[in-house]
């Protein structure tokens, strides 16, 4: 194979690859991209969708480069083809400096670029919906944040709204266009609060206040699942939630506060964490030697201290 032939093949390969890559990326971006999960219900969900789309747009040309070369070689350089040239050994088989430099440079740029992109996207916006522990580093810019406590217990999530009298419910309702701070904790074993369509995921650890932020955008439904294997009924530990327009949310919150008033007064004072071993509940596995029938012991809540 002479130098002119190699140049011809190289240009043809690049041309085929470039056309296919541009077509595939454009089609993906406009047709598939807007529908990629987890959707656009919140800022963090939109961020995750953007990340997936960027990774796909980078990956398609790379995959196509391999597939196009593979198909081209099978068709053009197959041994049975009339006039096929036998492979040459010797010095020409040792490699091509230009291709080697191009390959190493391209892959290095892609890997380092994805590394930087991924690292930035892990923390933007405001922790990217991940649990940041009790003292978050990446906080939202909004000064008007709605706190909602997520309480994991075998095998159900419940939610407390401290700004609405501290009522507790099994239904997670959120107002649209609002920055929300989820304070995630557990009353027993480790759970994980995963609101997929919200782009929020935070571990629920006993005696820990794990904070995750998101900003809701438009109304819609979402699912909450436990994503930490927590026992027999782990698979049934899910419920559904909704983002409602602000006015409807306030109607719901105020009516729920009224409806639950009788039970709310029996709840412990709101705290960011609770002490599951000081409530005297059944089970007799509590290291503080609580009399399970004592009327003194209650929920064991500690003051927020914040």
């Amino acid at each position, binding site marked *: 194979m002479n130098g002119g032939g190699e140049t011809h093949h190289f240009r043809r390969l690049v041309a085929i690859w470039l056309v296919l890559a541009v077509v595939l990326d454009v089609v993906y971006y406009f047709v598939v991209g807007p529908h990629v999960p987890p959707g656009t219900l919140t800022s963090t969900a939109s961020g995750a969708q953007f990340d997936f789309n960027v990774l796909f747009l980078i990956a398609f040309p790379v995959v196509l480069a391999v597939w196009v070369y593979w198909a081209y070689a099978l068709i053009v350089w197959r041994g049975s083809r009339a006039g096929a040239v036998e492979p040459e050994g010797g010095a020409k088989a040792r490699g091509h400096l230009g291709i080697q430099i191009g390959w190493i440079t391209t892959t290095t740029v892609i890997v380092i670029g994805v590394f930087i992109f991924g690292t930035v996207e892990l923390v933007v916006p405001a922790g990217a919906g991940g649990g940041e522990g009790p003292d978050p580093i990446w906080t939202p810019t909004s000064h008007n944040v709605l706190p909602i406590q997520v309480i994991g217990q075998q*095998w159900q999530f*419940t939610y407390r709204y401290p700004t609405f009298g501290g009522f507790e419910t099994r239904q997670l309702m959120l107002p649209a266009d609002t920055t929300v701070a989820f304070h995630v904790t557990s009353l027993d*074993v480790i759970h994980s609060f995963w609101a997929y369509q919200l782009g929020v995921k935070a571990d629920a650890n006993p005696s820990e206040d794990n904070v995750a932020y998101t900003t809701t955008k438009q109304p819609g439904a979402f699912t909450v699942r436990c994503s930490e294997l927590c*026992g027999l009924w782990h698979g049934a530990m899910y419920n559904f939630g909704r983002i409602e327009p602000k006015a409807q949310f306030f109607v719901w919150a105020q009516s729920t506060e009224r409806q*639950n008033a009788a039970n709310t007064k029996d709840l412990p004072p709101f705290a960011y964490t609770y002490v599951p071993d000081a409530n005297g*509940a059944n*089970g007799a596995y509590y290291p503080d030697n609580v009399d399970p029938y004592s*009327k003194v012991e*209650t929920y064991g809540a500690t003051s927020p201290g914040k």
Partner: protein
Amino acid sequence: MGRGRRLALVGALLAVAVGLVVFTTMAFLRSSPPSVDFTAGHQAGTPVDLTLQTVGSVGFGPHPTWVSYLTQAPNGQWVHTTLWDLPAYTRINVTVHQYDSGSPLRNQQYGQVIGTIGGDATLNGKTFRVINANNGNGVAHTFAIPTLGIEVPLYANKPSPNLCAAAPCPTNSPHNIVSFSFRTPGPGQYPWQCFIPCGLGYLYGNGGPMQTVGYMGGFLKVVA
């Protein structure tokens, strides 16, 4: 006996041993409490009466000290199971004979009645919507079907040596009667369970009977 026959014999014995191990393992994995059928002879539009009892220690079987639910079959016999076949789109009138003692709740949220017809239940004939578990005898167990949004706390008995400790409990043992109704949805399998950590001696009280079908949780098999 020749070498070939000895090898064949050893091979056959090995095959039998492996077969027995596989059979036993599969039998264990596939074992399940019986399901009580409330659909046989059911006429559409008529309610189904479901009677249960909760007992602090079941008193028999492989785990006699475990807390458990029991189900009364349509023929009146008590069955140690938490699996029921129920007709779809039907009112289920539930009566629970609660024989166990209790305590304050880990989460008082479970002291609320939620999702029943009328949003309430009756305790010994008296209507209630909330039980403050920090007062009185506390709450022993709950009856909850999370996927249907149903939750009913079962008021506890005062701790006493006279409490029934072996099922099925006679009605002259101290107990509370909690009644409520709900409607079954369309066909499907819906898990139900107790949400009170009542697995005595297990981590956070949620092991053992709390994680074993047939004791403190099971399934509603709703059929068309």
